[in-house]
């Protein structure tokens, strides 16, 4: 190291103006990077909180409830939003005192659940299977408080049917069956615009996991029942996030003649639904009512997470909460169902109502794994 180099470094003190410009540049790029990430992840514009929030917690004498969302946050238009809806209903109908904490990263789950356990909430609800490990850990340490996990069975790993945890699971095959039935009716008659008469429908599953398989099995059975000679194509995107993959699958299926595509792949599936829209054919949404996407959504196979959450809070209030087992929510319990039916297909509503009645009455046996 000769002294000239040292001098170069000494120049530090006179480089201030450059510093500002560099900082500004860095800040701009950083702001852009944040913006891009923000848009990519949080996606949906909020659209406003659904009406008046509880705000105060005065006067309630119902159970105290803590709700921990997964990374999707409250504006996910899906499980988190629905769980919150159930909680809000319990606040107004049962006087429950609810607190919601949104998780920003996976490492937040255990901290947020732990907060509620420490405050001895009567019930702590975790949204989604990603929280299974965290709920298991916290519930093991907090045997005096009750927990519920949405869309996950307490009989599965890592749980060992803990006495203070209840799994809230759904009969997806029934919702899939209804969606399939409507698709079958539409294909059979073939009068809606966009149909090609080939009598081919399709579905895209995210992965071969139980909830997805149950949806697909019901869908397949429903289509076959109401459409003679209909073909059902089934593909898996192996992904729940990347919209491009589902878009590709949907395009492939449409090139094979499919004109109704049922997405069972969460966020990835939105790609399928936009491919469907571009092609001018029909799509079926999943989990939440996705009719907001446009008039091309024939209907949605929905899970009424709000019903399950409300029901569980009520059970805690009544003292009838049963841990160590799953609450199974089907059509009869209003735990699954169909979303809004597209305006163009309203004429099938009465027919669908009959199918719903039949399923509720137990007249139909619906398979739980696709053929």
């Amino acid at each position, binding site marked *: *190291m*000769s002294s*000239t*180099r040292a001098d*170069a*470094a000494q*120049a*530090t*003190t*006179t*480089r*201030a*103006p450059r*510093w500002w410009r560099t*900082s500004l540049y*860095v*800040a701009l*790029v*950083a*702001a852009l*990077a*944040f913006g891009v*990430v923000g848009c990519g*992840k949080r996606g949906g514009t*909020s659209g406003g*909180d659904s009406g008046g929030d*509880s705000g*105060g917690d005065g006067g309630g004498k119902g159970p105290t409830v803590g709700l921990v969302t997964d990374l999707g*946050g*409250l504006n996910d238009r899906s499980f988190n939003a629905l769980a919150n809806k159930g909680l809000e209903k319990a606040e107004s109908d049962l006087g429950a005192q609810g*607190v*919601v*904490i*949104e998780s*920003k*990263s*996976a*490492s937040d789950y*255990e*901290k*947020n659940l*732990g*907060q509620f*356990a*420490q*405050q001895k909430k009567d019930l702590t609800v975790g949204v989604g299977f*990603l929280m299974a490990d*965290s709920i298991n*850990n*916290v519930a093991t*340490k*907090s045997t005096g408080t009750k927990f519920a996990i949405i869309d996950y069975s307490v009989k599965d*790993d890592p749980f060992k049917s803990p006495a203070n945890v209840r799994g809230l699971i759904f009969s997806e095959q029934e919702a899939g069956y209804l969606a399939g039935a409507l698709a079958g009716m539409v294909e059979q008659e073939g009068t809606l615009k966009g149909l090609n008469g080939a009598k081919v429908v399709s579905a895209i599953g995210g*992965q*071969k996991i*139980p909830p997805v398989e149950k949806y697909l099995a019901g869908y397949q059975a429903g289509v076959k029942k109401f459409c003679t000679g209909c073909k059902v194509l089934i593909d898996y995107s*192996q*992904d*729940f*996030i990347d919209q491009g993959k589902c878009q590709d699958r949907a395009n492939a299926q449409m090139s094979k003649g499919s004109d109704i595509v049922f997405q069972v792949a969460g966020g990835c599936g939105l790609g399928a639904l936009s491919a469907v829209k571009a092609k001018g054919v029909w799509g079926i949404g999943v989990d939440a009512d996705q009719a907001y996407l446009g008039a091309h959504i024939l209907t949605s196979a929905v899970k009424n997470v709000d019903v399950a959450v409300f029901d569980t809070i009520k059970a805690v209030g009544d003292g009838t909460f049963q841990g160590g087992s799953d609450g199974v929510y089907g059509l009869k319990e209003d735990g699954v169902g169909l979303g809004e039916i597209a305006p163009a297909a309203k004429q099938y509503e009465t027919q669908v109502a009959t199918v719903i009645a039949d399923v509720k009455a137990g007249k139909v046996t619906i398979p739980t794994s696709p053929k």
Partner: protein
Amino acid sequence: MNLLRRFDPEAALVPVLAVVAAMLVGMVLIYAIGYDGIYAYGSLINGAVGSQSAIAATMLRAAPIILTGLSVMIAFRAGLFNIGGTGQAIMGLLVAGTIATHFTFLPGASHWIVALVGAACAGGLWGALAGFLKVARGANEVVVTIMLNYVAIRFGEYLLGLGGPLQEKGSDNPSSALFADSGRLPKIWSPDPFTEVNIGIIVALVVATFAWFLVARTSIGFQIRAVGLQPDAAEYGGMSVTKVTVIGMFMAGAFSGLGGAVQTLGELDRLQKSELSVIQIGFAGIAVALLGRNTALGCVFAGLLMGALDSGAVGIQNDNALPSGVATKLIGVIQGVIVLFVGADVIFRRLSARVAGGFGKQRAGPASGGVA
């Protein structure tokens, strides 16, 4: 000692002003939507530092972002802008998770230590790749590191996806098996049964000290600074810009890799595929480094502050001080505004120059952005 003597109050002034200004903006926003700002900020402070549990949660949140902040800092000192913290953290946590899950033959504490070292190497190589592409092919490191983020995400998704090599055998879920207990970071403080501070915060402080020493006290640190200031002059002075660029990016990647590993082995139970695409610590590191004025000590304070704000968001939600869903967004806004104000420090400098001018003679020349 030396650290304190060199401490320049004016260098700390801009970040402090930026934080205060951002908090004021947040306060205005709260009143604008019709809520009680004072009450909300009370909840925020309570959630951030109001109890031992709150302090513990803040420390847990700070550790990984201090590390990713140091990553951005060291690259910046070498004149490189590392936006690849995300990808480097992912490579780090993938290796750390694999070691923690499968290398159960490692005895005692060596298990998690090896996992952290592995993470640092993996992240470092991922960072060095960007450095290498820059010197070998002239590829802009900003673009390359952003792209490598996606490569790392997709690589991890392949490893953990159904049928992937790291996915737990016989499971339906796209995730790895549970980490072995010895592979997890040891707990050092549990103010309550549910909040357990792990050794990650110590790791972050050790790495920060190392980073400061490296930059301020070693030959390679001197070269990093020289190249960062003026690469041509450094080259002319006999330094190898190539070497410094690759080493600088290796260091940056290693710190980010540690950040990912500290968060994963400290607070999670297994690797999950769905987390990879939403990991935030990489970008949070940019904010931390900016707020910390690209100094090691600054990164520590900035990381603690950003962690405290995130804990404060939980505090606000706990007290229902704002409608559900608003608290996390508000904190995001405050953090963003902080970054904006720090970057636009010229505003504060002009302001302080004018104020100072009113009281007496202005200091000779505008202050530098803080040394070391």
